[in-house]
């Protein structure tokens, strides 16, 4: 079908196009691999030091949150609201108030879950999933995320925020999540948003608002009566 020269020319053109296509794809994938509007960190070492140092200055956090659960194939979003509290070293209270009541309190090694019917207590030590999910929250708000062996981390930035992409390495986290992205305010290193991309293709976004850093939080906030 082709003359000898034509065939060679065609192959070269074809190879060139293939190379261009590959480069375009690599560039697109590289762009897609980072959060939209974010670029790779200019000075990752400085960020790591600042993030860790800022974490050390945070003793408590209180905020409201909005959780959006996006069911991709159903094209549905379930929105819930609640209050979040964190107190160093390892105390977390996540209270959903609407449209359902659900309370999760992590106090050291104990995890308490309470809904409108009952209270369940379990050990975070014996429950790997809770231990590691607890780990994400505590690591992100406490500034220790960068050293956690349960996930690999890539850091990006835009004008106002850092984005930490956590890729789970542990089997327990891998069962639920493809990737967790934590958006951190540059101004005070507090967490503005968490995006959890699941294996199912669904995702959950938690947005934190009305943040109060280093206020006095009573111990009773992290104690749940049965």
């Amino acid at each position, binding site marked *: 079908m082709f003359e000898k020269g034509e065939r060679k020319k065609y192959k070269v053109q074809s190879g060139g196009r293939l190379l261009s296509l590959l480069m375009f794809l690599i560039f697109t994938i590289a762009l897609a691999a980072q959060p939209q509007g974010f670029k790779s960190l200019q000075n990752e070492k400085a960020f790591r030091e600042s993030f860790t140092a800022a974490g050390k200055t945070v003793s408590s956090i209180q905020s409201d949150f909005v*959780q959006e659960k996006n*069911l991709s194939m159903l094209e549905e979003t*379930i929105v*819930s609201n609640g209050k979040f509290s964190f107190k160093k070293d390892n105390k977390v209270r996540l209270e959903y108030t609407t449209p359902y009541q659900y309370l999760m309190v992590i106090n050291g090694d104990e995890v308490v879950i309470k*809904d409108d019917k009952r209270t369940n207590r379990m050990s975070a030590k014996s429950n790997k999933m809770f231990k590691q999910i607890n780990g994400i929250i505590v690591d992100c708000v406490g500034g220790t995320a960068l050293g956690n062996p349960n996930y690999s981390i890539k850091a990006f930035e835009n004008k106002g925020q850092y984005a930490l992409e956590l890729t789970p390495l542990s089997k327990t986290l891998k069962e639920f999540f493809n990737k967790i992205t934590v958006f951190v305010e540059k101004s005070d290193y507090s967490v503005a948003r968490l995006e959890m991309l699941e294996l199912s293709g669904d995702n*959950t976004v938690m947005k934190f608002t009305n943040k109060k850093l280093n206020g006095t939080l009573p111990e009773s906030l992290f104690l749940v009566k049965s």
Partner: protein
Amino acid sequence: MKNLSSFLSACLLLLAACSSPYKHLQKASNVQSGCAQQLFPVFDKVIYDTQVDIVGKQLSGLLIFKTMADGSKRAVFTSETGPTIFDFEFKGDEFTKHFCIEKMDRKVVVKTLQRDLSLLLMEGIGEPGGEVLQDSNYLYFPFKKGKETAWLLTDHACKELLRIENASNTDKKTIISFPPIQNALPDTALIEHQNFNFAIRLVKLEKG
């Protein structure tokens, strides 16, 4: 003679134990054919706050039912904090498991959930089979699927669906109780397995 009597008593007890739990019911007369199917639920989207008790362990979450554009019904269970636990699709007798976390992805678990949810959605519950029965409280409409029968229990006027029971030839296996409904999913429901400790409690959060 005494031995023979004991043996016969034992046989009678065994036969009684193996007989249908619906054997005592009377044949219903003057029942409009297809009236139970007219009570099947029609819905866009419903979200339930859900509690599950399984052999002494508890878990909770949100169960979302949605009718898709092609008429299929989806059932998605998520934890309150976000992660999806399972995502099943029902369309007539067809069942598709879109997603299930590894810990729960066991044949027996998926099959049990499939049957329970198909009964509640009344999707692929089987074909009307056998006579409509009655007692003083209910009309019993049988829908046969394999070796099991789903019994839809209505009032005597067949205006409201009052209960669903799933049974083999010899045992009631699952009972789903809820307030009376007409062409809708119930506001609350309790799915109880009779042969092992497994119950699902549903309270509607949002209706569509």
